[in-house]
């Protein structure tokens, strides 16, 4: 931990920041400092509190506690417009502009120059052009924004942010939809802004980019401040360790490895990816899922783990590579339905939005997938449903008063088990689990892990996506490490250790 010292007060100082949402502490005594003429990266895993922090800064959320100072003066932004008035301009992820309006409109909306209450259009165009010129862009500002590439749109968003004499520019994942060349030109602009004394706060999950451009890094974890570091003297491995809450030199966790690992080698894979990928989503990757094996997918948030599952399951459609099913090459699954027909199951990460129907009973939630698979005409009898529900409630030890209880009354862990049961009822051969233990308590976690191991023992091929490296190490025989939307390593047998994963994740290559 090397807090950088500098004379005078910093451009932005956030101290003791706390914010809770319905009892969940999103930020707890967090802090952040950004200096003039520097680029500061804000890093953290999912749930670290990055987006809460910048939304508080932009005046979208009111803080429960803590102070925000801009050049030493306390501010309390009430709205994005208010924050702008204090010199804080934020460009949110997904480019929050109006694609159907002209570039000039987008830059000046809400602050067009007026004469007698009417907009002066020629003046508007001139000001928009001047704002773009400042960041080295010269385009026709009268054209609709959506006629330009995403990279240009990103620059237009920055031009809008700068048009209000911003002192601090906050960029939330500005590069997530840009290609390498576009990223390079964006960084050129950021460096120029930095030379002019602007403070830039950059939220991103691309490690390479953080090291390419930032001067200092603040790491948050679970809503708490982990530390502030000088980028140049802070090794990648330490950064990854700080984000995940692990020291890099940890003693390898002694996970006893069974004999499965060698036995698996001989078996032909059930499902194999050869160079499967999609432009802008996932670099071409190889992956082999074998029956009776749990394959882990480790990586930071946004590293391409969920994308891999989506490409396999037909949620997204790969544009390169091949898929082998039981050793036979075939076209990738075109839809989740097709994947399900072949015996695949996908338990998605966001169980609130994509998984459960909160008001329906445990039984109803459970039979959904089975009914969908049978088609609407061949109904499952009520008796059959009840038997099925009872079977899984016992087999998975789901804690519920009865099969008829609305699923929203169950704890997170038990909801997760019902979702698992839903897929298991289809007797899949390959099951893709995306963060199956997120947000559930330790005891339930252990049970879900046990369940995953028993699925493996029954001969299923399991793909386990998890941010919890310990969990991956405990459960998997083999694992792939992802970073920046590509697979960077495959570990198996004795290599399956937290320390080797961290090393792979932070390895500086090329």
């Amino acid at each position, binding site marked *: 931990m090397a807090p950088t010292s500098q004379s005078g007060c910093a451009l932005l100082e956030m101290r003791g920041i706390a914010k809770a949402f319905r009892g969940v502490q999103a930020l707890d005594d967090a802090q952040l400092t950004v200096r003039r003429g520097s680029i500061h990266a804000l890093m953290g895993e999912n749930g670290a509190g990055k987006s809460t922090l910048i939304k508080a800064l932009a005046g979208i959320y009111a803080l429960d506690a803590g102070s925000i100072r801009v050049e030493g003066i306390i501010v309390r932004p009430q*709205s994005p417009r208010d924050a702008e008035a204090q010199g804080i301009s934020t460009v*949110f992820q997904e480019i*929050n502009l109006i694609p159907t*309006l002209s570039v000039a*409109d987008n830059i000046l*909306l*809400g602050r067009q120059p007026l004469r007698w209450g009417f*907009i002066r259009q020629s003046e508007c165009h001139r000001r928009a052009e001047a704002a773009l010129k400042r960041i080295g862009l010269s385009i026709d500002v009268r054209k609709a924004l959506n006629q330009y590439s995403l990279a240009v749109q990103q620059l237009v968003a920055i031009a809008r942010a700068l048009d209000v004499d911003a002192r601090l520019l906050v960029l939330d994942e500005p590069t997530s939809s840009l290609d390498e060349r576009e990223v390079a030109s964006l960084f050129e602009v950021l460096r120029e802004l930095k030379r002019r004394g602007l403070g830039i706060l950059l939220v991103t999950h691309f490690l390479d980019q953080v090291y390419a451009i930032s001067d200092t890094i603040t790491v948050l974890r679970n809503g708490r401040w982990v530390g502030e570091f000088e980028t140049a003297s802070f090794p990648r491995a330490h950064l990854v360790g700080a984000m995940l809450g692990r020291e890099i030199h940890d003693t390898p966790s002694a996970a006893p490895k069974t004999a499965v690992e060698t036995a698996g080698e001989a078996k032909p894979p059930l499902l194999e990816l050869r160079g499967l990928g999609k432009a802008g989503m996932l670099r071409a990757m190889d992956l082999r899922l074998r029956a009776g094996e749990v394959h882990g997918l480790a990586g930071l948030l946004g590293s391409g783990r969920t994308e891999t599952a989506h490409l396999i399951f037909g949620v997204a459609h790969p544009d390169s590579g091949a898929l082998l099913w039981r050793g036979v090459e075939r076209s990738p699954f075109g839809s989740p339905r097709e994947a399900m027909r072949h015996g695949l199951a996908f338990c998605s990460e966001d169980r609130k939005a994509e998984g459960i129907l909160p008001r329906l009973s445990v039984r109803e939630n459970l039979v959904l997938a089975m009914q969908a698979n049978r088609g609407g005409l061949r109904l499952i009898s009520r008796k059959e449903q009840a038997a099925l529900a009872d079977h899984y409630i016992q087999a998975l030890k789901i804690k519920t008063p009865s099969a008829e209880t609305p699923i929203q009354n169950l704890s997170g862990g038990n909801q997760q088990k019902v979702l698992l049961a839903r897929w298991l009822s289809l007797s899949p051969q390959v099951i893709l689990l995306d963060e199956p233990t997120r947000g559930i308590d330790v005891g339930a976690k252990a049970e879900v892990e046990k369940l995953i191991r028993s699925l493996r023992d029954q001969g299923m091929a399991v793909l386990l996506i998890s941010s919890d490296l310990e969990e991956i190490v405990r459960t998997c025989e083999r694992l792939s490490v992802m970073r920046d939307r590509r697979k960077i390593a495959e570990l198996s047998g004795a290599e399956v250790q937290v320390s080797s994963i961290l090393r792979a994740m932070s390895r500086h290559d090329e």
Partner: protein
Amino acid sequence: MKAPRSLPLLATSFVFVTLYGVASALYPGFLSLQVFVNLFGDNAFLGVAALGMTLVILAGGIDLSVGAVVAFSTVFIATLVARGAHPLGAMAAAVTAATFFGAFMGWLIQAFEVPAFLVTLGGAFFARGMAFVVNRESVAIAHPFWQKAADFGIPLSPSATLPATALTFLITLGAMMIIAHRTRFGRNVYAVGGGIASARLMGLPVASTRIAVYALSGACSGLAGVVSTLYTGSGDPARAAGLELDAIASVVIGGTLLTGGVGSPAGTLMGVLIFGTIQSALVFDGRLNSWWLRIAMGGLLLLFVLFQRALSRGSALEK
């Protein structure tokens, strides 16, 4: 390369000119200044209502109360005049009442996050009911000032006059074009319709913009009621049934996207003129049932929706 934003407007203008040309070739006398001017006069109350609707749709909303508010406005004015009020005062009262009613609906939509479709449907029932409460019968307007206003006209040529109704339509059109393109409020309307979440994050006054849009649509409906009484010389609680649907059709045919954010009052003018041209052509022809108007409008509406879909899909594919 994606099609420019003006393409739908160009397409609508092209359809109008073609229709007018075909009708002129088929029916002698169609190609005259007075027939053209009458397109504005005869459809002024549809036009004024459709201009209000344009703003609502641009902001991503919908207003189904238009026809009922127009009917209320006509019968309210006629009853007030019959009871001795000055016509100008009656008009002002009707437009004011309609504006507040629109603002109230807008407030409900904004404050309680209820679908505009439902709120304005409820508003339509309420306004239509209130129209019948004011007077159950059609009321004729007899007032010297009224007669003067209804007879007023600007002579354009020896054989053509621009009536007061058409003048009101054109003035409203001009005002709407200035509001839409040359005021911050107007640009905010486009922004709210183009992406409400983004508009919020850009710090735009989303709530007041949405409420104002419905208030303005209410004002336009009230004014359309004024135009309607000038045109017919009476107020009628049963008038303008389904006018909102003709207005929506004119707006969409005029190139405004029903999802909001794209379109213009000028396009709506074209939509109304197309409506008027088909109607006039049917009158000139005399053999066809007037319901062919609806059939033609239905066909055009579907055509334009598909056309816009193709345009937006074209731009989506490019990404």
